[in-house]
Structure formats: C-alpha cells, structure tokens
C-alpha cells in the first residue's frame, strides 16, 4: 500500500508537467468559444504562472486562507487575469472556470499519490478544494470590480457628452437638456452653464427641456436652483420645451415656477431672448 507523506506543494511540483498538460487541454476546450480573444500561448503562459504561484504558496505551509502575504503574488496574478477577461468580454463563469478546472487534474494526481490512504486523500483534497474555491471566488470578485469600473467610466463619459452649452447669439446661450436629470448631472449642468456665462458675458440662458422625459419635484428643484444661480450672477434664464403633460405634472405637484420665464417651444424662447438683448429678426428685403 503506497502511503505518501507528500504535501500538496510537493505533489504539485512532482507532477507539474502532466498536470499542466491536462489542465491546459481542458481549459482550451472550455474556452473554445473565445479562441479569437485568447491565444493558446497566452493561456499556457497564464497556466504556468498560476502553477508557479500555487506551488510557492502551498509549500509555505500556510493554509489559513488566501488573504495572507504568501498569497500576495497569486492574488496579483489572478487580479490581472480576471480584469483582462472582464474587458475582453468573457462571462464571470468562464473566468472562474480558469481556477475551478484546475481541480480535476490536480485531484487525479493526488489520488495517484495517496492511493488507498483514504483519510490522507480526503484531508488533502479538502484543504486544496478550500483554497481553490477561495481563489475562484476571488476571480469573480475582481471580475465584478473590473466590470463596474468600465460602467463607471462610461457613465462619466456620458455625463460629459450630455451637457453641451451652445452659444446661440451674442449674449444668448442655450442648453439643450436630454435625458433624466439627477443631482450629479444637474451639478455638472449648473457648473458648465455658469462658467460659460462668465466666459461669454451672456445675459440670457435658455434651458431647453424638450428631451427630459419626466419632471418630478427633484428635477424641478434642480432646475430652479440652476435658474437662481444664474440670476445671482446677473444672467436671466428661460426654460423652454415644456410639453403639455409636463405642464400638468408641474401644476399637480404644486411646484411654483412663477419666478421663472417659461416658454412652450425653443423658438418662443429665442424670440424673448432676442427682445431682451434689444434685437429683432426682420425679413431680408425689408418687407416686414
């Protein structure tokens, strides 16, 4: 009865080449959908690094979870792999498979070493399983974070794109608002508008809300704040593009817009703005 006292680390080192061969074959099969994204050589290199880190950490004899300093290298490696997978468009399951598929070849070698020693085999499989599960969960966690950062970046980009301040005429600015107004966006709108008012010396700003789907108390509050801030700086605001339903909602909600000039369409607002700065539009050939 072959009874071995080899630890996990030694088993890994002893069977390194055969484990690597089996594992990378399994992995290539599991990830075949993404052949174009991940080259075989790249995958093989990642497997290599993973094995190196695993045997290093396991030889240290610390089995107290993967948060210890022995696992720092492993965490870094998995972090890099997961975030690159997230950006390439792999699913979380496919990402975690990288770690979980390691169990099969590894446990097969353990069985080979321990043979009939059931207790020993169980003990080693249990502790190896625990570590690998933790590593698998860790990849999912990193994957999630990488995805979230992608979403965050897109949101910021949208925010930047969504607040254009347009100069309509000398001393007249327009701000076409599209999409839902939340606090973060209003803050941005307010800041860009006020800066632009200073930069261009504009006296009138038209806030066009044709593209704002709904106006509730919060949105109205934000609009009023923007108008008030502009007034404090010495510029007047006109709110235009108020659809009939929105007019109804505003009244039903009991929001008072009495201090603000409101117009149904942008054209009306432009007319008023031109009047305020003392200009008029006339036909070219002089016939009024």
């Amino acid at each position: 009865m072959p009874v071995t006292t080899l630890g996990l680390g030694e088993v890994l080192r002893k069977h390194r080449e055969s484990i690597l061969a089996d594992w990378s074959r399994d992995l290539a099969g599991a990830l075949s959908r993404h052949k174009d994204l991940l080259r075989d050589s790249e995958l093989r290199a990642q497997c290599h690094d993973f094995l190196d880190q695993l045997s290093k950490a396991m030889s240290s004899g610390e089995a107290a979870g993967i948060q210890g300093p022995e696992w720092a290298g492993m965490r870094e490696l998995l972090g890099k792999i997961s975030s690159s997978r997230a950006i390439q468009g792999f699913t979380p399951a496919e990402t975690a498979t990288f770690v979980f598929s390691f169990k099969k070849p590894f446990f097969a070698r353990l069985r080979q070493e321990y043979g009939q020693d059931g207790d020993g085999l169980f003990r080693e499989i249990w502790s190896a399983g625990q570590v690998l599960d933790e590593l698998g969960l860790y990849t999912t966690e990193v994957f999630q974070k990488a995805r979230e950062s992608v979403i965050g970046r897109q949101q910021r980009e949208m925010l930047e794109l969504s607040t254009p301040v347009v100069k309509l005429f000398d001393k007249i600015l327009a701000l076409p608002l599209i999409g839902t107004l939340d606090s973060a966006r209003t803050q941005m709108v307010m800041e860009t508008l006020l800066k632009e008012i200073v930069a261009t010396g504009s006296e009138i700003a038209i806030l066009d809300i044709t593209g704002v789907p709904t106006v509730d108390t919060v949105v109205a509050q934000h609009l009023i704040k923007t108008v008030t801030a502009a007034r404090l700086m010495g510029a007047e605001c006109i709110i235009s593009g108020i659809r009939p339903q929105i007019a109804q909602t505003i009244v039903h909600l009991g929001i008072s817009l009495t201090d603000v000039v409101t117009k149904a369409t942008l054209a009306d607002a432009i007319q008023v703005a031109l009047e305020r700065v003392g200009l008029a539009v006339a036909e070219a050939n002089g016939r009024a």
Partner: protein
Amino acid sequence: MERIPILRMGNFLLVTIQVDMHDRLAMTLQEDLTKKIAETGARGVMIDISALEMVDSFIGRMMSHISSMARILDAKTVVVGMQPAVAITLVELGLSLKGVQTALTVEKGVRYLEQAVTTGGGRRTNGRRPH
C-alpha cells in the same frame, strides 16, 4: 482696523470687496455704507464681488440686508461679478437673494444704475434688466 473702502463716483457709491469677508468686516461695511449713503445722498450703490471666492450664509444675508437698507435710504443696489462657485454655494445654502439686483460686469451694473436712477420709481428685480 481693517475696512473696505467705499468710493464715490458722482451719484453712485462703489464698493469693491477684494479680501476674504469675515463677519466683523461685513458688519463694519454695513455701517459705513449706510452712513455714507446718508451723508452723500447717493442714488446708487454698486458692490463688486468678482474677487470674492468664498461666502457663507452670514455674508449672503448681509448682501440682501445692505440692499434693503439702501432701498430704504432711496438708493438702488446692484451686486456685480459673482463667481460661479459663489452662486452655487448661495443656492445650496438656500439663499436666492430675492430683491437683490445682479449684473455680470461692472459696466452692465453702471448701465443698470443709470437707467434705474433716471426712471426713478419702478424697482426692478429678478434679473429683468433694461436694455
């Protein structure tokens, strides 16, 4: 003691705030300004705050107080050159300074005062400037 100078330009008084306002300074300004309006019989007051970068609720209230006091003494007040950051702060503090006339630049402020003084009566508020 530190004081904010009040300059006389014909019928108008000009106050330029170029240092950080603290409460004591604000109170002094309020006193000096009302005294000066009464002394000179000025018809308009222009407060230039383009160099002011920080405000608190006290300073915000002081601005509307000065404006109301001047009105009682029959002088129009216009606040000019408020910075975007200051405007946002005041709005967030819930101070909309209703009744305080504002203008973007000193030039526009002067134009407003001249107009307001010659037309006499009609107090214009809420950003409705003459053109």
